[in-house]
């Protein structure tokens, strides 16, 4: 689905060649500052590479309308920011910003349940804990049904138990919908358990690519 060739972004990331296949769970691991977030942002077209090409579905990424592309290939940052107001307002604003039709409270409640949150829609997001915010942000993304999910440390603010629940849920969600999941994670255990492909980045370069069939 994604093919990267001779990519260079400042001194942060250099990728000679990389292919990320559709309908797979790909985990990106490595020390902080290794270029993991930068790689996700490049795929989301939130930044553009200084040189090289990124093909998405065999077409140069820069030829897509960036907003339309991001509605297909959606990214959730490590520290998501809540829109001001209640949880309901967060859902509504998400729909409005992305030009979708309004949805009912039932849809919102189902999403909260999906991410394991038992909170009223009237709860003000400024009163939520870091972990709750992360899960509301994930619910906001799931509301939009993206084809590909780019998650940057989606469980960094969660305890081990909740992390396991959330990651399992996202992986199941992706596999059921035959979607694609590309996830940055600090936890090797997550990669070992869920990933079809694990990419290890070190110092802005790909150190190794492990697939279920072995190391490339």
């Amino acid at each position, binding site marked *: 689905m994604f093919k990267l060739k001779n990519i260079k972004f400042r001194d942060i990331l250099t990728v000679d060649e990389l292919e990320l296949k559709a309908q797979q769970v790909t985990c990106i691991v490595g020390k902080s500052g290794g270029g993991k977030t930068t790689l996700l942002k490049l795929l989301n077209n939130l930044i553009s590479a200084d040189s090289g090409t990124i093909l998405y579905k065999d077409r140069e990424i820069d030829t897509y309308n960036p907003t339309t592309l991001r509605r297909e290939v959606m990214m959730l940052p490590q520290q998501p920011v809540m829109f001001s107001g209640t949880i309901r307002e967060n859902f509504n604003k998400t729909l409005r910003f992305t030009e979708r039709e309004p949805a009912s409270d039932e849809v919102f409640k189902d999403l909260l349940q999906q991410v394991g949150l038992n909170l009223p829609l009237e709860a003000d997001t400024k009163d939520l804990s870091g972990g709750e915010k992360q899960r509301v942000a994930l619910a906001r*993304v799931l509301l939009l049904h993206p084809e590909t999910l780019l998650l940057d440390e989606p469980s960094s603010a969660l305890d081990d138990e909740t992390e396991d629940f959330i990651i399992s849920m996202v992986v199941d969600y992706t596999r059921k919908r035959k979607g694609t999941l590309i996830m940055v994670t600090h936890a090797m255990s997550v990669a070992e358990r869920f990933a079809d492909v694990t990419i290890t980045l070190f110092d802005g370069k790909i150190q190794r690519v492990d697939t279920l069939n072995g190391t490339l």
Partner: protein
Amino acid sequence: MDEIKDVTLIGLATAYVFLLILLSLLRREKVGHQWELLLSTFRMTIQLVLVGYILTYIFDNPSVWFSLIALLLMQGFAILNTFQRVGNVPRDMKRIVVVAMFIGTGITIFFFVLWVFRVEPWFKPQYFIPLAGMMIGNSMTGITLGIDALLGGMKDNRALIENALMMGGKPSLIVKEVSGRAFHQALLPTINSMMGMGIVFLPGMMTGQILAGAPPLLAIKYQIAMMLGILGSVVLTVFVVIKWGSATFFNHRAQMK
């Protein structure tokens, strides 16, 4: 209309003496700032005397060119003043400010001169210059507050805006809250002044006309028309700068600059 009562030179000198007494008081009490007050008084005096002579010449020799040059000079000073007061205005935004000032004040000035005040000939400097000056001056204040709020709002909400972009949010929809707040900030002084007008204070233009002997009912007609002109000019200028200015924070790939 009664004959205009002149302010004699002795009268004016007395005003300066009043200020000098105040300054010596400030000095004795070691409050400071007396040099700033002295300098601003000096500048104001020189500037107004010069303007007085220039306007006298222009009024005696009315011409399209003099009126248009005065308009351009006022625009130029207003735009430069905006850049100085806000500081670090990005280059793209500077271009928008220039366009917004010319579109916003230009349309309003000509609309009011031609169809509201019905000045004949339209460039008659006694009307054209002060009317244009008031609209440009107020629009300058509005645009300064507007871009200051817009720049601050975009900076403070950068992470939130990026977050919404990552989900496929449309930039113009995402920045609506920030730009709405900037629009409100920009209009606040004009709205406040209209709310208090006639109750909290008498506006300068009306006061000037009344002092010059005009009947209050005529003075208020001018003032009402002028306030509508100022409001129109500020709204139009700020609308253009915020509408187009918001887009300058993104590149052609809808990425934040």
